């Protein structure tokens, strides 16, 4: 995605071929001492799959080869070569962990308790190294699923510490560090959904559980930094729902705070859809007439300031329809008025947002 095309001249093409050849040669020099004589990258990959993997070579050399293929030689590494990640994990399992190699479809192997083949110290060290490796890789490839997955796997295999007084120490510090790392990733790209997914996983899995309220505060921070951060608003819907469901937060008073927050966003950035989507979610099925009418007023006020605001008009139509269907008597003067208002708004919407004309027409 996102790679510009150049009109390659013959010269440029030839130069590119030379550069690629140089990369391949450098790559191959590195692997020369691991018994592999390859003249192309395809041969190398073939040798990996047909020789090492086929012979189930779980040696240090094999492990070293996976490191190179996945991370060391930055010119030609391919962190998306998932078979090599699998192989690396199998070496870790074979050499350090259970001695059981993972073959699909026996997923139970990775979820069930494993026998430690090495001392906890050794296991901790080797997994810590892999975590460090994925941290480096994620900085360059923040959206590669396979890297996030390997990180998760390492985390789940961190053993209890050998010190009985503080057996959970490793796990506690490792997971705290995870939260810190994922926060850094989200600072770099606040819309990276793999990072958000990972954050949700860490928050749910940490031995020292983070409260929903703490997570809510995190989403507030992200939203106040950028009202346009849809990912943060989305996270907020999950956290708030959880707080309401558990009864930890009183829904009625919380709702008021949420409306205040989202109105702030709507008035500051009326052209941004995140706040409008969140607002619509807060309104929900429109059961509460008081809230519904109040919010219609709010949007009406904003529309007066921003007469061309499509979101204002679309929201008004949606909310007035809720009013119509839930609270007004069929045939009453009020319902007739509201219907007329909706039709007028829809006609305006067809004008200012012609791409979605048919939707406005259908609603009408």
């Amino acid at each position, binding site marked *: *995605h*996102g*790679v*510009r*095309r150049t*009109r390659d001249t013959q010269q440029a093409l030839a130069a590119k*071929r030379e550069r*690629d050849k140089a*990369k*391949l040669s450098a790559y191959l020099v590195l692997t020369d001492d691991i018994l592999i004589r390859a003249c*192309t*990258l*395809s041969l190398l*990959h*073939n040798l*990996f*799959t047909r020789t090492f993997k*086929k012979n189930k070579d779980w040696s240090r050399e094999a492990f070293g080869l996976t490191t190179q293929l996945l991370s060391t030689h930055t010119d*030609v590494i*391919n962190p*998306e*070569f*998932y*078979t090599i*990640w699998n192989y690396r994990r199998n070496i870790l399992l074979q050499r350090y962990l259970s001695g059981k190699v*993972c073959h*699909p*479809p*026996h*997923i139970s*192997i*990775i*979820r069930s308790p494993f026998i430690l083949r090495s001392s906890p110290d050794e296991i901790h060290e080797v997994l810590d190294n892999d975590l460090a490796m994925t941290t480096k890789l994620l900085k360059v490839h923040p959206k590669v*699923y396979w890297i996030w*997955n390997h990180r998760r*796997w390492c985390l789940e295999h961190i053993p209890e510490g050998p010190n009985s007084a503080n057996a959970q120490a490793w796990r506690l510090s490792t997971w705290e560090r995870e939260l810190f790392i994922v926060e850094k990733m989200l600072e770099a790209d606040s*819309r990276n*959904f793999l990072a*958000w*997914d990972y954050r*949700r996983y860490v928050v749910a899995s940490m031995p020292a559980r983070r409260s929903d309220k703490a997570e809510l505060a995190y989403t507030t921070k992200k939203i106040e930094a950028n009202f*346009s951060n*849809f*990912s943060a608003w*989305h996270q907020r*819907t*999950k956290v708030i729902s959880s707080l309401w469901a558990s009864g930890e937060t009183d829904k009625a008073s919380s709702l008021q705070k949420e409306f205040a927050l989202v109105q702030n966003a709507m008035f500051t950035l009326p052209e*941004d*859809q*995140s706040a409008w*989507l*969140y607002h619509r*979610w807060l309104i929900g099925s429109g059961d509460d007439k008081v809230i519904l009418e109040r919010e219609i007023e709010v949007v009406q006020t904003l529309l007066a300031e921003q007469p061309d605001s499509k979101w204002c008009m679309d929201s008004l139509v949606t909310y007035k329809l809720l009013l119509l269907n839930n609270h007004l008597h069929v045939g009453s003067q009020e319902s007739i008025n509201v219907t007329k208002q909706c039709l007028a708004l829809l006609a305006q919407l067809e004008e200012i947002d*012609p*791409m*979605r*004309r*048919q*939707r406005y027409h*259908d609603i009408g």
Partner: protein
Amino acid sequence: MSDTLLTNLHVKYIQNLGKNKDDLTYHMTAHLRMNAVYWGVTALCIMKHKDALDAEETIEYVMSCWDDEAGAFGAHPGHDAHILSTLSAIQVLATHDALARIDAPRVIDFVLGLQQPSGVFAGDAFGETDTRFLYCAVSALSLLGALDRLDRARTVAYLAACRNFDGGFGRVAGAESHAAQVWVCTAALAILDRLDVIDVSTLGWWLAERQLPNGGLNGRPEKLEDVCYSYWVLSSMAILNKLTWIDATALTRFILSAQDPDGGGIADRPGDMVDVFHTLFGVAGLSLLGYPGLDDLDPVYCMPASLIERLGLKKGWKALPRREA
């Protein structure tokens, strides 16, 4: 800048893929080769040039990716089995009427064995879960005629758990809505006859709002347009019968402008490098929009509509009518 589909150029582009084995890119993409074969074959079918690639060669390649330890297909010979490549393999073989070559019982076991207690599917033994894999499982079982072996209730329950405040779906329960995940969840629900799980008016609205002023579609709010969303968003809308809620003319123009008029192929957006992924999804999007001269595409399976109909798997969906040239 082109205002017509450069079919012959795209056919040649696809034919030439994989011919240049000295190209670094070729090797760097081995991990998705099976998917690439599916993308190429399907694009050719939509463009009515199915025979541009030799069927037997293609089938042989697919079979060479069989991972006998796992009982399923990997991305490339010697690569581990994964549900993504397994579905692509099934799709390619089905397209070439060669499903009989599959050891179906083993593949079915592989797929079913990947379902988690929550209802989601993992991609392989190492357990990454994603609604994409759930879709792969449902589609694969459906194409192999083994959907009755699926725990439907558990599967649908997980899909419902992935539904978000905006009507969309994410890659796992709790995850943000994203057009590609919306498609896999919507299509899976279509196969399972459970579109009732979807809030159609809200999701239809969210999908319609993916269209940007330049006519292209993005995958989620505040993101850039990308040709592949022409497929993910459009096919979801076709399944929900809301395809008229976007501007077809503007989108058609956008897709056509992302073509490479010299070498063929389609890119994610105008001026970028082409690839077979965007070539398929650009052509698929055009087919759903009724572009003349193309074959119908089934938006639930992303395979030729006639084939899916012949297999008795067609669901209710609505594309735009095919225009005359």
